[in-house]
C-alpha cells in the first residue's frame, strides 16, 4: 500500500506543468541545480540526475530524495537531448548561464546543492568541448557570500581539480568528486585497512576514452589513499604502450603477481574463454599478452615510494579489478569493481545515495583531493604518451591529505 501511495504521488508529479513554469519545489525540500555537459542517453545526467527526479533504490526501498531539481544549465543539446523534456515534465527551468542557474534567475544563490555532470559517462558520442562550469559557479559562491555542497563527476584535468579543491577550502563548501566506480559493489567488499603499508598496487581497466582511464586512476587512488602516513602525493608518471608494457612487467616495474591476482578476480575473461566457457589462467599461461592488441599502462610513482600501475587490457578482460601487496601481509589483497548491467547501472544508485547525504549533511564522505590526484595523473599520462613514454615529474601532485577512515562504497 505504501508502494501504491508513493507511486500515485510520483505519477501525479510526472504529469508536469507546462514548460516555462517556474520550478515548483516542495516547501522544505532541498533545492538542486544541475550543471551538465548534456542530458542524453548514457550521459552522467541521465545516470545520476534522473535519480533525483524519479528516485532510486537505496537499502531495499525506492527512495525519493527530499530534494528537488530546480534549475539546469546544459552545455549541449544534440538531437538526443532530453533536458527540455525533463524540464517540462519535472517543472524546473533551464537557464542560459551557470550563474542564472545557481540563482534561479534571481539575484542571489538560490539552491542548496550543485551537481556538475560533465564526464563522458556511457555516451559514446564525441565529448563536447565542455565550457568551464567550475569558475562561474565559484564566482557566484564568492559574490553571494554563500557556498553549497557540490558533486562533481569528473574534473577536466588537474588545473580544474585543483581550483575546485582550493575553492572548497577557501569558501568552506564540501565537494564530493568522482565517478561511480570506486563506489560500486566490490567483490569481495575490500578496502585496504586504514594505515596499512602498501608495497605495490595494480589496477586493471578496460575502455579507451578519457573517462575510462580516469575511472581506473580514481579507483586506484581510492584504494591506496588509505595507506599509513596518509596520501603524500605523486612523484612521477609514465605512459607505456605496446610491447613495452610487458617488458616493464618483466623488469619488475609492475608486478606479475598482482596482475595474476587482479585477473583472477575477473568475471569476464576474453579470448578462448569466450569460445569454450572455460576459466583460464591467462597470466601464468602466457596467453594474456597476445589478447591485448593495444596494451596501455600508466606507471605511477608516489612520493612515499609506493609504486602503482594501471593496465588497460582490452581484449583480455571485460572488467575493472585491483590488487595490492601490503608489507608484512602474506596474501595479496584483490577485488573486482562490479559494473552493474545497463540500463539500470545500479552502481550509480550507490553514488546517488552519497550525493543525497552530501547535500543533506553538508559533509563529503571522501576527500576531493582524490579527484585532483587522479585527474593530475591522467593529464601526465596523456602528456607522457604524446612524448613517447618519457617519465614526467609531477610537482603539481605533491599534495597531502588523509581520507576519512570510514569506507565509502556500496554495502560498506
Amino acid at each position, binding site marked *: 500500500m505504501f508502494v501504491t501511495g508513493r507511486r500515485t504521488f510520483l505519477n501525479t508529479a510526472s504529469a508536469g506543468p507546462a514548460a516555462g513554469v517556474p520550478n515548483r519545489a516542495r516547501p522544505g525540500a532541498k533545492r538542486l541545480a544541475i550543471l551538465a555537459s548534456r542530458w542524453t542517453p548514457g550521459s552522467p545526467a541521465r545516470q545520476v540526475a534522473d535519480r533525483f527526479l524519479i528516485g532510486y*533504490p537505496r537499502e531495499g526501498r525506492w527512495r525519493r530524495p527530499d530534494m528537488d531539481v530546480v534549475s539546469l544549465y546544459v552545455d549541449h543539446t544534440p538531437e538526443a537531448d532530453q533536458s527540455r523534456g525533463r524540464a517540462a515534465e519535472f517543472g524546473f527551468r533551464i537557464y542560459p548561464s551557470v550563474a542564472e542557474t545557481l540563482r534561479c534567475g534571481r539575484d542571489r544563490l538560490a539552491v542548496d546543492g550543485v551537481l556538475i555532470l560533465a564526464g563522458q559517462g556511457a555516451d559514446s558520442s564525441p565529448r563536447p568541448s565542455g565550457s568551464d562550469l567550475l569558475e562561474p559557479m565559484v564566482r557566484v559562491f564568492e559574490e553571494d557570500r554563500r557556498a553549497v555542497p557540490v558533486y562533481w563527476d569528473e574534473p577536466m584535468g588537474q588545473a580544474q581539480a585543483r581550483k575546485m579543491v582550493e575553492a572548497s577550502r577557501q569558501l568552506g563548501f564540501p565537494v564530493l568528486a568522482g565517478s561511480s566506480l570506486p563506489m560500486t559493489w566490490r567483490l569481495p567488499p575490500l578496502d585496504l585497512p586504514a594505515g596499512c603499508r602498501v608495497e605495490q598496487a595494480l589496477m586493471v581497466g578496460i575502455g579507451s576514452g578519457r573517462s575510462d582511464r580516469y575511472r581506473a586512476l580514481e579507483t586506484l587512488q581510492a584504494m591506496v589513499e588509505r595507506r599509513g602516513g596518509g596520501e603524500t602525493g605523486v612523484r612521477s608518471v609514465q605512459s607505456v604502450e605496446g610491447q613495452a608494457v610487458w617488458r616493464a612487467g618483466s623488469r619488475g616495474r609492475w608486478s606479475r603477481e598482482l596482475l595474476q591476482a587482479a585477473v583472477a*578476480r575477473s568475471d569476464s575473461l576474453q579470448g578462448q574463454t569466450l569460445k569454450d566457457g*572455460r576459466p583460464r589462467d591467462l597470466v601464468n599461461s602466457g596467453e594474456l599478452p597476445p589478447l591485448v592488441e593495444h596494451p596501455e599502462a600508466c606507471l605511477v610513482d608516489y612520493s612515499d615510494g609506493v609504486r602503482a600501475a594501471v593496465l588497460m587490457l582490452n581484449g583480455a578482460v*571485460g572488467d575493472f579489478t585491483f590488487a595490492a601487496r601490503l608489507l608484512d601481509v602474506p596474501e595479496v589483497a584483490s577485488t573486482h569493481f562490479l559494473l552493474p548491467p*545497463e540500463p539500470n547501472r545500479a552502481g550509480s544508485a550507490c553514488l546517488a545515495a552519497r550525493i543525497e547525504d552530501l547535500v543533506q549533511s553538508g559533509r563529503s564522505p571522501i576527500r576531493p583531493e582524490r579527484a585532483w590526484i587522479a585527474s593530475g595523473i591522467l593529464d601526465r599520462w596523456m602528456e607522457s604518451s604524446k612524448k613517447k613514454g618519457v617519465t614526467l615529474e609531477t610537482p603539481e601532485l605533491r599534495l597531502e591529505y588523509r581520507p576519512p577512515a570510514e569506507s565509502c562504497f556500496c554495502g560498506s
Partner: protein
Amino acid sequence: MSNSQPSLISRRTVVAGIPAALLLAGCRPGTPERPKIAALVTEYRRRAHGQHIVDRFLGGYGWGGRFHRPPMDVVSLYVDQIRESDLSRDRARQYPSMKIYPTIAEALRRGGDSLAVDGVLLIGEHGSYPRNEKGQTLYPRYEFFRQIVEVFRASGRGVPVFNDKHLSWKWEWAEEMVETARELDFALMAGSSIPVAWRLPPLEIPSNAEVEEAMVIGAGGGADSYGFHGFESMQCMVERRRGGETGVAALQAVRGPRVWESLRAGSWDRGGWDPELFEACLCRSLALTSTREGFDHSYPSLEEIPGLVKDRVTDSGPQLDQPLAFRCEYADGMKATLLLLEGLTMGWTFAARLKNPQRLVSTHFYLPVRGLGGGAEANFFSPLVNGIEKMFLTGKATYPVERTLLTSGMTEAGVDSLWRGQHRVETPHLAVRYRPTPEPTYRRCS
C-alpha cells in the same frame, strides 16, 4: 564371521582427528595421493552444468585472487547422453588421466572390481529426458545414485557424493537418497549455486532472529527448474532463524492472473504478501525493467507490473509459465513467497521481515551470469565447486543436504499444486528438521 560384508568405513572416520589445515592443504596422512574423483554427467556440452563443474575440477578457476587448481583429479567420467555437441572426448584427450567409462559402475571401479575413487560428482542437469504430465523433467539423478550406492555397498565403503540441483524429482526418491547416505555414512551434498553466491550486501539472518515473512523474487525457467533455484535461495537464508528449520506444512502455487490478484492483496492474510518485502526485492535487483520511457531505472507501479511479465511462448506453448507465485507455510508459522517474474527483473533477490526487534532485511544473490556483469565462464559455479572440493577433502558435507532435501520436496509440491489446479497442498512429509552450519558458507572473501 569371515564371510560377513566388510564393514563400511566412512570418510568421516578416516579423517577424524586430522587438523583442518592439513586437510585443506590436501595433506592427509595415510592418503598421500590427491583424491581421485569420478564425474557422472548427463551431458558434457557447452553451457551444461556438467561442463561448467567438471571443467573447473580439470582446469581450475579464479578464486581468492589467484588461479586455483583443485588439489584432486577427475580420473573417470561417465556421460549418459553423447550428442554432436559433446565435449567429453575432447576433454579426455586433453586430460589423459581422465578416462571415459561406459557405465557408472565402471567409472567408479575404474577397471577394477571395487570402488576406486575418493569422491563422486553426480551432475544430472541438462540433456534430453522425458517430462511427466506435471511438467517435471525426469533427470536420472536417483537412478545414477542407486548405481553409485550399489558399488559402495559391494565395495564395503562409501565416499562423498555431490548431487547437482534437486536430489530427485520424486520426493520418496530424494528422501531415500538422504537416508541411504546416512545409513552408509558417506557425505552427501547437493543443491543450487545460488546459496553460495556473493550477496550484495553480505547478509545472513542472525541465528536468533525470528522471521515473520520472507520473499524471494527471481525469473527465468519453469516451476520445476527455476522454482528449485528460488526455494534454495529462500531456504539458505531462512534456515538460520530462531529454532532452526522444522520444515514446511503447506504450499500453494498460483500462476497467471491470480498472481496479480495476490500482488494487489496487500498482505499475506489477504492472499498476498507484505508489499515492503516486494519493494525490497525489486530494489535489490540489478536489472529491474524500466517502465518509464527514456529513463534507465524506474520503479514500476502495481498497474504496470502485469504488462512487463511475459512468458516466452514458442510453438510448443508457454515455456516459463510466468508469473508464478509459491506461497509457503512453514511448520513454525513463518510465511514465505517465491515469485518468478520473467520480464520484470533478472537475477535473484531476497527480503525478510524479522521481529523482536522488527527489522526488514534484503539482499541480492549476485551470480555473474551473462547480462549481469558475467562472462562465458559463468563464475557462479566457482563457489559451488569450491564447496564441493572442501567436502572431498574433509569428508563432510560443506552445508547440510537436508536443505536440498526440503527444497526438492518444495519444488515437487509446488509443481503438484499447479497441476492440481493451483490448490493449496498440505505437506506433512516436508517436516524436514535441520540446523545450518554455524559459519556462513556463501562467497564472502574468496
